[in-house]
């Protein structure tokens, strides 16, 4: 690990959540790589190196979370469109639940939440 990366605590966090952001974007519609990267880029701080999305997509495809189809574009070569699978949806649902809990816990400890504490059974 490079010192620079160790200094930014969000680097690890970003790596952990980005694939679920991709899955979430794909629940609305099928997207091709460039569009997907642009959508992610619209949210500040989500992606630092856009190129790393492609290995991520490749990994998600091999994991069965997304499927790809080639489609003709109006101009230029056909494009690879990504669609979420049932297994991807399942993974996203699981993460969403975990994330809410995690986010609330961090907010509660940091005092940045909206007043609701950590729920424990």
């Amino acid at each position, binding site marked *: *690990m*490079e010192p620079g*990366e160790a200094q930014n605590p969000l*680097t*690890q966090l970003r*790596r*952990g959540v980005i*694939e679920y952001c991709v899955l979430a974007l794909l629940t609305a519609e099928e997207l*091709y*790589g*460039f*569009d997907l*990267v642009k959508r992610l*880029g619209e949210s500040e701080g989500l992606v*630092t*190196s*856009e*190129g*790393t999305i*492609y*290995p*991520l*997509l*490749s*990994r998600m495809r*091999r*994991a*069965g*979370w997304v499927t790809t189809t080639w489609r003709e*574009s109006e*101009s*230029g*070569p056909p*494009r*690879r469109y990504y669609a979420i699978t049932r*297994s991807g949806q*399942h*993974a996203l649902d*699981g*993460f969403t639940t975990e994330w809410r*809990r995690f986010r609330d816990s961090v907010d509660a400890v940091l005092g940045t939440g909206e007043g609701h504490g950590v*729920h*424990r*059974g």
Partner: protein
Amino acid sequence: MEFTVVDPLVEDYLRRLDAAAYPLGDDRRGELMAGIREHIEAAVESGEVHDEVSLRALLDRLGDPEEIVAAARDDGSGATPYPLGAPAAVTYRRAGIGLEITAALFLTVGSVLLVVGWLVGVVLVWSSRRWTVGEKLIATLVFPGGPAAALVLAGIGAGVTSCGSSSVLDANGDVVDVQSSCVSSGWSLPPWLGLTLFVAWVIVPILVAGVLVMRARRRADAEPLVPVTVSPRGTTRWGGLEIAAVLLLSDQWTRTEKWIATAIGSLVLVVPIVAVVGLLSFRSL
């Protein structure tokens, strides 16, 4: 289109990426190269890239080729180290207690597989490092065969009583009397003993299993979080057995609610046993 192919900036970038991606192997390198190439072409097509400044900005946002390849190597196969210095995309989860849950299930529900199920449970109990020796002894001794053994025992007790009847006829052949006799070839349990055995064999194991699983959960929570490399298996870490026991692990319910649910679940287990025993007893009358 022509622009992306001939531009030395793009050529240089793709060449560097291709070289860095060499360790990925042909398939994944090809896929990665195609993806990045497509991205650049799409950027040109969309008009986002129209001169050298915007092209440099695009390549900048794409990131260093080495960094992209590092992300590609992080595929959870575990076979590839990270010589390029990028940290693995690792998430963390709390330590799992699949072993303990499986052990508890084998000792209770699993005992339906007579002897074998119980034996497997005992072996699993002793291979756990989250229970004390005392707890392991309790788990071993409290389940002498598990609930299924109680079922078999009850079946034997009920099934060995055989009854017959004979008719006494008068001179005209009419039935004047029916004599019934029951021969008990085995033994039958007095009610108090039956009840005690029922509690010892069915209720106690379930309660003990519940308590032990909860203790294991608490101890596992005190352990360091387990790193999970984002892998093809992803979040599918829930096996069937764990799902069956999810109730006890959930943070969404209070302890009281868990006990109530456990009691209901136990009844679901117990009622069929009682029904079968009842049926066997009825048939033997």
